[in-house]
């Protein structure tokens, strides 16, 4: 099964944790500086992977926005129809009242 972004991030974090243990265990300052630079490189790789993971969601967001836009448009149309019917009922009611009076 191909590795997911989350799997890759987990691996990077694991490597970082190992390096951090090494950093604590090493007495030599120059070695510590080198190890910390490796940690920083891994952090930046993790940033990059997280960016890719976030970008993968963008297409899903766009599809959701499209669907909700369509739903909103249909509901606004229904509301406009209801307003038109309401106006028509109002106009008809006045005329119908007069007609009914004449018929009665």
């Amino acid at each position, binding site marked *: 099964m191909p590795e997911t972004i989350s799997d890759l991030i987990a691996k990077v974090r694991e490597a970082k944790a190992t390096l*951090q243990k090494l950093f604590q265990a090493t007495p030599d300052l120059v070695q510590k500086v080198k190890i910390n630079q490796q940690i920083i490189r891994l952090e930046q790789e*993790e*940033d990059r992977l997280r960016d890719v*993971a976030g970008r993968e969601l963008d297409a899903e967001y766009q599809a*959701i926005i499209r669907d*909700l836009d369509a739903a909103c448009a*249909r509901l606004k149309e229904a509301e406009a129809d209801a307003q038109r019917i309401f106006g028509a009922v109002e106009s008809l009611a006045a005329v119908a009242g007069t007609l009914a009076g004449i018929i009665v």
Partner: protein
Amino acid sequence: MASSPVRRSLALILALLAAAVAGCGFTADQRAAAVRFGEATREMADLAAEALVRTRQDVVHLRTRMVELGSQSVDLTKPASDLDADLDVDKLELRLRAAARLKAYGQLVRALAEEDSTARLKGAADSFIGGLSEVPGVNLPKEKADAIGALVSAVGGWFIDGQKKSALREVVPAARPAVDALIVLWKKEFDPKAPYWANALATTEERITGSLQNQINLLRPTPAGGAVVDGEVPLGEAEIALRRVRFHELRADAARRKVGLNELCERIQKALDLLKQANQDLENKMKYSDFSVESIQEYVGKVEECVRLYRVLRPQ
């Protein structure tokens, strides 16, 4: 007493009306489901927008302080490692747009179901009665005028509500997967442990207690004219002490912001569960609740109202 043709006609009209109302208008539980959905979407969209913006602001704030302390973890030349990490403005805009659309959709659903057309049609009913009373020779008793008004309002209201309900019956099932998909995305985005939006703050806090703390611990006073351990800026004892104080302040600040965001994420996770339930409930109610026990009781009430109007209006 034998039925007159007028009485028979009136009775028939009211009987047909009573039968027709069964399919018209919203039942109380349909309205309640739409109101709950509207509330859930509003709360969720507002919480999501707050968390999206706040996370980015916190991340930019903390990473700016990290740069001031000489952190090499923040790299202004790399978009994913700069001040806002991977929380870029275009990503934020897209996510805020989704929140705004969800809120708009919820408010439209609620407005369509909640607005009582029967009450709004009272003006039309008054016009009808006004038209009747203007005809010379027509003298309508108040009781009958009120009954006619009630009938005009009710019929118009049921018809308009029927149109709205038909639109909701079409739209709600079609939009449900989009709302559910957004819930799934936000469950990920606002899980501080998953590698998405809220995680950027947790990660920033880890960098402070990780590589930045290492860097601060490695600082040594510069020997006269010599190189410093971090190979960057020559530092005196006073400057190192000041950096350490600032580092501890930053670490405390980051921890506080992380706790605040975690609390917000917990609220969001609960609100998402409620929204999921409200979304499902709305679809179920729009599809099936016309013939629930409660709705049948409502129809009985409507039929009783028709019978009452018939009694008032029938020729004596």
